[in-house]
C-alpha cells in the first residue's frame, strides 16, 4: 500500500545563520547558542518573545539539555525539542519544526545546533558517547570516529575498488569550495600529493580524510510562508524529507544507509528527479560516507561512487557540485553544528544568498544527514530536498 504523507506547502525555512567557527574556544556551548539566536533575531527582525519554539542540538551542553537553555537565555517557549542526533540533527530538527508550525503548535521555531570545543572536549566526549562506545569501542585503541570510519573505508576500498585518489578528488574539490567560503577554517588549497602523503591517522585514513573538531553554531528558522512574507525574509520551500534509524542491522558492516529505503518516496514527494538537483550537501566527516550517500540517494549505483567522482567535477562550478561551502572536511566540524552545515548552506544556495560559493542558477538542492556512530555504524540517516523561489 502506498503511504501518503502530508506535504509542507505552507511552511518554509528562512534566515540561515552560520556563526564563524574557531578551532578552540573558552566559551561554553550556551554562548554559541545565544550568538546564533541573536543572529536569527537580527536576520529576521523578530523579537525574542516571537520565538515560540526551539529545537536544539548540542554535544557540549552537559549537564544541561535544551530545558536548561530556556532559563539560561531567558526564553519562554510553548514548544521545545532536543535532537541528539549529530550529523542527522538538521534534517530531523527540520522535520519536527515543519510539523509543529504546520499544526499550529508553534508559529516560529528556531532550529539551532551549537557546540563549543575546549582543548579536551573532543576526547572527553568520546569515552561517554554511548553505552556501546564505552563498552565495546573506546577500550579498543580509543581511536574515536577515525577508527570507525577506517574500517568502513578499508572495506569499501577492498570491495568496490575505490582508490585513495578518488576520495582525494572529493576532498580537494571541497577544499576548493572552502576557499570561497569566508568561515572555512582551512584557508590553503589542498594538492593530491599533500592528500596522499599526509600523516596516517587510522589506516587507510590519513589526515585530510578526517574532520577537524572545532567550536561554532548553525541555525535557521521555520515559519509559515505567510509569516515569512510579512517579515520580508527570503525563504526556501521544503519539497520532501525522510529519516531512518538503525536501518539494515543485519549487515555485517555498514555499506549502505537508510536513505536507500526511502529515496524513491523522497523524490516522489518532491516531484523532482535526480537531474533536477543542482547541488548535493552530504554529511561528510569522512569521504567514504559521502560516497555512500551519493549511491544510496540514487545518483549512482552501489559501489559506483568512485567512478561517479572520476566522471564529475564536484566544485561549485562543476558538473555535480558537492558540499559547496567546503563541507566539514574543509570548514571544520563544530559538533552537532556539523549536521547543520549543509542545511544552512543549502538554504543560502536556493535563496540566492550563497555569495562566493553560489552555484549558478541553483534552484533545487538535496541535503543529506548521517549521524551517531553508536557502535560499528552510523544509526541516523535523513535527507531533505529544498527549493528556492525560482524552482
Amino acid at each position, binding site marked *: 500500500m502506498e503511504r501518503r504523507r502530508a506535504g509542507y506547502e505552507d511552511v518554509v525555512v528562512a534566515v540561515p545563520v552560520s556563526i564563524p567557527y574557531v578551532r578552540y574556544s573558552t566559551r561554553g556551548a550556551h554562548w554559541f547558542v545565544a550568538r546564533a539566536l541573536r543572529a536569527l533575531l537580527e536576520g529576521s527582525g523578530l523579537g525574542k518573545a516571537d520565538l515560540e519554539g526551539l529545537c536544539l542540538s548540542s554535544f557540549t551542553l552537559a549537564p544541561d539539555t535544551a530545558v536548561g537553555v530556556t532559563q539560561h537565555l531567558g526564553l519562554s517557549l510553548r514548544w521545545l525539542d532536543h535532537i541528539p542526533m549529530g550529523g542527522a540533527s538538521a534534517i530531523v530538527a527540520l522535520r519536527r519544526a515543519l510539523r509543529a508550525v504546520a499544526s499550529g503548535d508553534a508559529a516560529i521555531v528556531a532550529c539551532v545546533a551549537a557546540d563549543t570545543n575546549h582543548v579536551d572536549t573532543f576526547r572527553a566526549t568520546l569515552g561517554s558517547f554511548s553505552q556501546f562506545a564505552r563498552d*565495546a569501542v*573506546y*577500550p579498543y585503541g580509543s*581511536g574515536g570516529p577515525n577508527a570507525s570510519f*577506517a574500517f568502513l573505508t578499508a572495506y569499501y576500498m577492498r570491495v568496490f575498488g575505490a582508490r585513495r585518489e578518488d576520495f582525494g578528488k572529493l576532498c580537494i574539490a571541497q577544499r576548493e569550495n572552502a576557499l570561497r567560503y569566508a568561515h572555512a577554517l582551512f584557508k590553503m588549497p589542498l594538492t593530491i600529493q599533500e592528500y596522499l602523503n599526509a600523516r596516517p591517522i587510522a589506516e587507510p585514513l590519513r589526515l585530510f580524510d578526517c574532520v577537524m573538531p572545532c567550536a561554532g553554531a548553525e541555525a535557521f528558522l521555520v515559519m509559515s510562508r505567510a509569516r515569512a512574507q510579512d517579515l520580508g525574509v527570503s525563504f526556501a520551500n521544503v519539497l520532501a524529507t525522510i529519516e531512518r534509524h538503525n536501518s539494515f542491522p543485519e549487515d*555485517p558492516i555498514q555499506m549502505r544507509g537508510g536513505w536507500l529505503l526511502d529515496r524513491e518516496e523522497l523524490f516522489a514527494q518532491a516531484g523532482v528527479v535526480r537531474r533536477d538537483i543542482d547541488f548535493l550537501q552530504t554529511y561528510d566527516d569522512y569521504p567514504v560516507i559521502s560516497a555512500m550517500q551519493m549511491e544510496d540517494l540514487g545518483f549512482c549505483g552501489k559501489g559506483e561512487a568512485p567512478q561517479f567522482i572520476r566522471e564529475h567535477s564536484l566544485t561549485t562550478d562543476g558538473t555535480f557540485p558537492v558540499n559547496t561551502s567546503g563541507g566539514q572536511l574543509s570548514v571544520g566540524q563544530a559538533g552537532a553544528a556539523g549536521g547543520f552545515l549543509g542545511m544552512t548552506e543549502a538554504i543560502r544556495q536556493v535563496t540566492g544568498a550563497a555569495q562566493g560559493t553560489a552555484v549558478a542558477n541553483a534552484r533545487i538542492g538535496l541535503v543529506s544527514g548521517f549521524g551517531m556512530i553508536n557502535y560499528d555504524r552510523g544509526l541516523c540517516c535523513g535527507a531533505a530536498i529544498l527549493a528556492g523561489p525560482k524552482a
Partner: protein
Amino acid sequence: MSETPGRPKRKNPLLRTRVPLLPPRGRSRVALGLTAAAALGRFELQVCPECGTVQYPPREACHRCLSLDLVWQAQSGEGELISETVLHHSHDLYFRDRMPWRLGMVRLDCGPTLLAHLHCGVAVAPCRVRIVARLDKAGQAALIAVSGRFDICEGAAEMADDIHLREMTCDPRCRKVLVTDGKTALGQALTRAFVAAGADIVWAGCAEPWKRSAGLEEVERLEAVTVVPLDVTNGDSVKSLGAALGAKVDILINNAEVHRPYGIAARYGTEAARSEMDVNYLGLLRLAQEFGPVMRARGADGYSSATAWVNLLSVYALSSFPTHGTYSASKAAAYSLAQCLRAEMQSAGVRVVNVFPGPLDDEWNQELPPPKMSAQALAKAIVKGLQDGVEDLFPGEVAQEWLARWLEDPKILERELAIGR
C-alpha cells in the same frame, strides 16, 4: 607463527620508569559479564534462550525478540576478519604510548560483528580468525582476534610474539619470579616450571634455612635459581627481603601455606588454626605491604614490567570443607584479602591471580580419595594460567567441578559438603 622475540634490551637506568597507565576501564554493568568470563579464561557472549540470537555488544534485552532472560554462553570465537585498521593516533594516553595499534572487525560465524584487537600473526583481511577473551591492563575483558591456525592451548606462545598483547597476559618469559616457599614439593615444582617457561631469575624462599631439604638443594643447582631467606610469619624477614628484591620482582607466587586437617570438634585449642592464619592470611598481608607498593610502581616498566601476584588459595576458600574447617577458614580469609589486594593493584595494571586447586596429593590430604593434584600438575597449570592471562584459576577436574557446583548454587554445595561429599 612468527618467531618469538629475542631478549629485550636491558633497561637504561637513567630513563624514567613509565607511570602505569591503564586503558579505559569504564563499562556498563551488563558488559561486565564479558569480564567475568574472561577472568576464567573463557570467551562468552549473551545468548537468548527464546530465539537463539547471539549478541554483542552486551545488552539488557535480546535485540531480536526483546526477551529479558539472557544467558552468557561459551563461544568458539570462529569468524572472519572483514575489515581492519592500524591506528596511528589515539585519544587515550595508554594507547598513545603504544602506537601503532592494529584493530579489526570480525564477523562471528554465530552472528554478531565484533571490534577486536588484532594479533600480529593475523593475515590481511579478509581471512579466518578466532576471537579469544583476555583481561587488559585495566582488568577488563578485551577481545583479541588470533590466527585460526593456532590451537587454543597455544595462547602463551601466541601472545608472546606480540609486544602489545603481551600486556594482556602475564607470561613469565624474561621475567623475575619470587616463589615464597621453595621448601615444599609444590614450591620446587613451581621453581622448575618457571625456569622451564623462560623466567630470568627464580628466587625460592626458604624459612628456617638451617633445615634444608634435599629437593631444594637440587633445584638450587639450576642456573636461574637463587634460594633466599624468607619467613612469611616474620615481619622483619619479609621486610628485609622486600628491601632487597622488591624492585626486581615481576611475578610473586605466594605459595607459602600451612595446612592441618580437622574442623572444630576434632582438635582442641587454637594453635593449629593460629598457625594457619599466621601463614595463609597474615603472611599474605605482610608480603602485600612490603612487595605491593613497589610492584605497583613497576606496572609499566617496559617489556618485563611487574605483572602478576599469584595467591595459592584453595577451593575450600569458596565454601568450607568441614573436615578441613580451620584451613578452609584461613583460605577464605586469604581470599577476601586477595580481593582487596586485587583492587589495589589494579590501578597499576598488576594482576592478582587467585588459584583455587582441589586437594593436593600431599601428606595433609592423605585421607582424601583421588583424584588429587600432583605438585607438578599444579605448577604447570599456574604457569599456563599466567601465560593465558587468567585471573581466577581453577586447575584440574576437582576444582572445575567445585566451581561449577558453586556457580550453580552455593547453598546446595554447602549442604553437600556438610555430609562429606
